[in-house]
């Protein structure tokens, strides 16, 4: 489906989507000027991180068909490298981030050489196993990672060019812009991939590995290429998270739950499309935040739909926040059973059937 759009794009870039995209980007760049709520910015930063992770995974999982459920490994390697260099070697994150990227790519190539020999469900299990090995190793190598205690940084050193301080990282705004820029970069990268030989080869591998092989596609090379691109951005997301949140430990940045969450962002949005991970992130991050802080219950009560002192109101107020993971689980089950192509696929189908009706 996406190939079809790309065919059109090469012949002549459609103007309307381009204008809309430009408008959206400009709006996002101006947003911090109008929105002063740091809480809103915080949510936006989390959304950016989620978009970066989802889009990065999408290149490997959505386009190349290699469903890694171990992407926390690259996230964690990025976060740890940057922070270890900052904390123990006093290397500014501006450089450390790239060391993180290099480390994540190197990790990816090692993992790839192991896991890409395996196909299908076994690949999924192998990717989980590798990520778990990373997590447990990080726990058990306190000399390197400070083990279970994790690494806490209190200040990110200011970013300077020459002697001019560009930003001192004291507010959310620099993180907002960094997140936005990386998110745009990963989306741009996805587009570039989609409209290049790489993209064709990735999709060929996804559709049929043997056929792809027979058409002169070096499977190992191209799968690793997809993984490398994916690892670069996942690692950047990890570094950004580490610097922004300030604290990392194996239980947060190398967790299996994180890997699942990355995949979920894509599946819920729509796999193998540029928009999918964005939709997934924009839906999931605020939704889970709203559930966590019990805003849904509060909103229901404030809107007058549910009376606060009614049994339902009390129940919602008391229980709904406890139940957020439960609701998350239910959402997952529902999406997979009833919208296997994600929200994007569901909307497309809806439009397609409407068009048929009117026609």
């Amino acid at each position, binding site marked *: 489906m996406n190939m079809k759009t790309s065919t059109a794009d*090469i012949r002549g870039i459609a103007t309307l989507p381009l204008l809309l995209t430009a408008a959206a980007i400009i709006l996002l760049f101006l947003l911090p000027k109008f929105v002063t709520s740091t809480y809103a910015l915080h949510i936006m930063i989390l959304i950016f991180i989620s978009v970066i992770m989802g889009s990065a995974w999408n290149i490997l999982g959505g386009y190349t068909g290699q469903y890694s459920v171990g992407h926390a490994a690259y996230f964690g390697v990025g976060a740890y490298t940057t922070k270890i260099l900052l904390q123990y070697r006093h290397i500014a994150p501006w450089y450390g981030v790239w060391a993180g990227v290099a480390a994540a790519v190197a990790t990816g190539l090692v993992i790839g050489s192991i896991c890409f020999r395996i196909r299908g469900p076994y690949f999924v299990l192998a990717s989980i196993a590798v990520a778990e090995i990373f997590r447990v190793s990080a726990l058990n190598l306190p000399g390197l990672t400070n083990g279970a205690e994790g690494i806490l940084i209190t200040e990110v050193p200011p970013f300077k060019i020459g002697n001019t301080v560009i930003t001192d990282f004291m507010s959310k705004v620099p993180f907002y812009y960094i997140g936005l820029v990386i998110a745009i970069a990963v989306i741009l990268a996805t587009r570039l991939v989609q409209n290049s*030989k790489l993209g064709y*080869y990735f999709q060929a591998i996804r559709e*049929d590995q043997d056929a792809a092989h*027979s*058409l002169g*596609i*070096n499977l190992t090379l191209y799968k690793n290429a997809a993984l490398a691109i994916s690892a670069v951005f996942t690692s950047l997301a990890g570094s950004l998270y580490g610097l922004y949140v300030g604290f990392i430990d194996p239980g947060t940045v190398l967790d299996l739950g994180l890997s699942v969450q990355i995949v979920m962002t894509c599946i819920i949005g729509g796999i193998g499309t540029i928009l999918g991970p964005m939709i997934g992130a924009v839906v999931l991050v605020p939704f889970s935040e709203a559930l966590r802080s019990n805003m849904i219950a509060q909103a229901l009560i404030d809107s007058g739909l549910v009376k606060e002192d009614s049994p339902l109101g009390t129940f919602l107020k008391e229980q709904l926040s406890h139940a957020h993971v439960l609701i998350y689980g239910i959402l997952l089950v529902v999406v997979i059973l009833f919208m296997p192509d994600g929200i994007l696929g569901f909307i497309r189908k809806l439009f397609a059937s409407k068009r048929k009706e009117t026609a």
Partner: protein
Amino acid sequence: MALLEIRRVSKFFGGLAANSDISFEVRQGMIMGLIGPNGAGKTTLFNCITGYYPPSRGEVVFNDKRMNGLHPDAVCKLGMARTWQKVRPLARMSVVDNVMVGALCRTNSLTKAREMAMEQIKVVRLEQRLDARAGSLPIGERKKLEVARVLATQPKLLLLDEVMGGLNPAESEEIIELILDVGKLGITQMVIEHNMRAIMRVSDRIVVLNSGEKLAEGNPREIVANKAVIQAYLGESDA
């Protein structure tokens, strides 16, 4: 000049010999037919030639280069491309994209690849279906798509595995024409086929396999007259 030489190739699975001690050569520019009853080891031989299996014994020499141990992608790059008995369209990609994947073997430019792809799509006459999803094509068009896709890799030697399987006589006729056209372009071909009439028409030379062994080799006339072949292939001598 021999473009492809099969030298005493054997392939074992467990204890079973799927190919044993097969030798023959395919000369530049010819169309070689490969026939034999089901299970005779034709597809296994294709797999050994194109790098899907390493031969257990013997050598495959293509263009004076020993091919043993090369992977399918390297084999394709060297100019030997195959189709699949059971077609393998890249289902969620369009027809033109499918063929472009083949063409990208020779170029890095999408524009160039698109041109090359269009050329081959014309050869197989699928111009009408450019943007259709490959997975939605009927069987006959899928087979053509597969031929176009391998042609786009610009092979010196094309290996066709039952491209007429499942086609009606009219469609088969189109494929026969296609094979002959491709032959005229100077591309050497090796064709596995069940359709006897077709194989007799297109082949310059035929190798017959039976139970993994080479039973006979010769031009179509010789093969039709060969007692052993009739016995093995048509079932009984009184056919």
